């Protein structure tokens, strides 16, 4: 037997069937089969299982078909029958059955059918922490073997479950009649993990000392020292022809200081209270556009060039890209191989040719082949490793074929492929050093593309590295 990951920290587990009349079967009959399958493990350990009608149960049981949102799509009748998740929060412990199988309940014999009891007993082994076993005849053997009535748990599986949860109280060891009582099981040693720490120091960003902000906003970086030094604040002189000497003088003093604009645009930094603090914020999106790093947060963006953050940022996104004024954040941004810039906002996406929105946009995400149920895209990038485009959302990711403008078959897949990153990322992008960076909260991971896992388990804080704080 093989134990995988953690075990349940308590012994009295709850379960709940969350599908009505799965595969057209009688719900009561299905619940009976599931209960019998759980009882198989209860009889051979200290575990107890209580059925409740709640989606907060430890083990939730669903019947799905095809793609059902967890990155492990079913394949219709035959081959893949079901899968389950190892103990843990959220989906941990849940078991999913392929609704398109011909499931048989107790005593139904059907050559073509698949015994729900047999498969459920196997999947619940995963829900409790057991992985597959190569022992033929073991319940945790991965290939379907059917089960005989009055089935008892084979020895291989019994050893596994009792190593994790202890033998049942008062039960003779290993069901050997008259045998010795089982010794008190010491708790299994915690899984040992070896951690290697590599420290990478980054050249901190230099921030230019703040200067008056009056330089043209044409996007080109200015060399230090070439800024105009002083604006021209001289008050206006009344025009000669208009001077009059009133007999009575009333003096009202109003002082207007109006700069004389030297450049076509005069840009003032946003003074609103929703301006994000660059040293203390997560990011909505981050992307390389025209070889510069653009970081998006709320209605604002920063622009980072070789010399660090450009002066005068954050600036409102709408200053550079004419997005509808109602937009107050973006979810993900990336620059396509054809240099068009794509913004993902909610269930729609916008395509820009430089600063200009292409006609016909926004369009729904379904145009790209993404499921209608998808609420938003967390991150998008063109992955230098293979030149493919990837979209990330929740616990799944898609690979996108730019040539046909549609996601590829065989996707989505589970985020665990990008080991260490976890679900629900904030942003992802590939920097000019060719490395991939995933962002979540106020930190980020550098990703090792070859080993497909984060280079170091612990996140680094984003602000010192990317914002020069």
């Amino acid at each position, binding site marked *: 037997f*093989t134990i995988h990951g953690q075990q349940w920290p308590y012994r009295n587990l709850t379960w709940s069937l969350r599908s009505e009349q799965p595969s057209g079967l009688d719900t009561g009959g299905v619940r009976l089969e599931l209960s019998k399958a759980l009882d198989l493990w209860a009889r051979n350990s200290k575990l107890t299982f209580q059925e409740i009608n709640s989606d907060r149960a430890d083990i939730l049981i669903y019947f799905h078909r095809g793609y059902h949102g967890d990155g492990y799509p079913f394949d219709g009748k035959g*081959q893949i*029958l*079901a899968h389950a998740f190892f103990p843990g929060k959220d989906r941990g412990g849940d078991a999913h059955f392929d609704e398109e199988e011909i499931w048989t309940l107790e005593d139904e014999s059907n050559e073509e059918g698949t015994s729900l009891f047999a498969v459920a007993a196997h999947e619940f082994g995963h829900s409790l922490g057991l*992985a*597959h076993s190569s022992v033929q005849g073991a319940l945790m053997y991965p290939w379907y073997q059917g089960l005989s009535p009055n089935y008892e748990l084979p020895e291989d599986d019994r050893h596994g479950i009792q190593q994790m949860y202890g033998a049942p109280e008062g039960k003779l060891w290993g069901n050997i009649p008259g045998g010795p009582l089982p010794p008190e099981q010491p708790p299994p040693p915690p899984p040992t993990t070896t951690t290697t720490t590599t420290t990478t120091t980054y050249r901190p960003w230099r921030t230019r000392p703040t200067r008056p902000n009056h330089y043209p906003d044409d996007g080109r970086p200015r060399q230090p020292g070439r800024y105009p030094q002083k604006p021209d604040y001289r008050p206006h002189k009344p025009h000669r022809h208009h001077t009059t000497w009133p007999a009575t003088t009333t003096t009202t003093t109003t002082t207007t200081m109006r700069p004389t604009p030297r450049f076509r645009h005069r840009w003032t930094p946003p003074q609103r209270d929703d301006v994000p603090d660059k040293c203390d914020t997560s990011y909505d999106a981050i992307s390389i556009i025209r070889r510069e790093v653009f970081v998006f947060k709320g209605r604002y963006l920063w622009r980072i060039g070789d010399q660090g953050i450009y002066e005068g940022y954050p600036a409102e996104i709408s200053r550079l890209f004419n997005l509808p004024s109602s937009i107050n954040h973006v979810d993900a941004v990336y620059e396509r191989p054809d240099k068009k810039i794509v913004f993902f906002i909610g269930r729609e996406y916008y395509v820009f040719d430089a600063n200009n929105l292409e006609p016909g946009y926004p369009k729904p995400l379904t145009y790209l082949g993404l499921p209608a149920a998808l609420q938003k895209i967390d991150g998008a990038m063109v992955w230098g*490793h293979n030149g493919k485009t990837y979209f990330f959302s929740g616990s799944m990711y898609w690979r996108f074929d730019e040539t046909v403008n549609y996601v590829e078959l065989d996707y989505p897949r589970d985020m665990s492929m990008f080991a260490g990153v976890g679900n629900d990322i904030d942003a992802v992008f590939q920097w000019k050093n060719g490395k991939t960076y995933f962002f979540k909260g106020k930190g980020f991971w550098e990703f090792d*593309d070859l*080993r497909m896992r984060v280079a170091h388990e612990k996140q680094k804080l984003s602000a010192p590295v990317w914002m020069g704080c």
Partner: protein
Amino acid sequence: APVSSIIYADDKVQNYLMRFGYLPQTDFETGNLRTEDQLRDAIKNLQKFGGIRVTGEIDEATKKLMKARRCGLPDQLDARFARTRHKR
């Protein structure tokens, strides 16, 4: 002598080996090319785990095993680093 069936291991076979943990799943993304040895090792592992004769070939018994009904979880949960292991 029969032509080596490894040469004829098509996508379905390789996808099966990746899906159930006998080849690194990361190959889905990295597109790393497999060596003949890797494929052969993967098939031997599958035959060993499945309890059928270990030949390293995609023979009839192996084809039958690959069609059989089964659980969707991988059999080898740390195959992700299988490549690394090969390197060592």
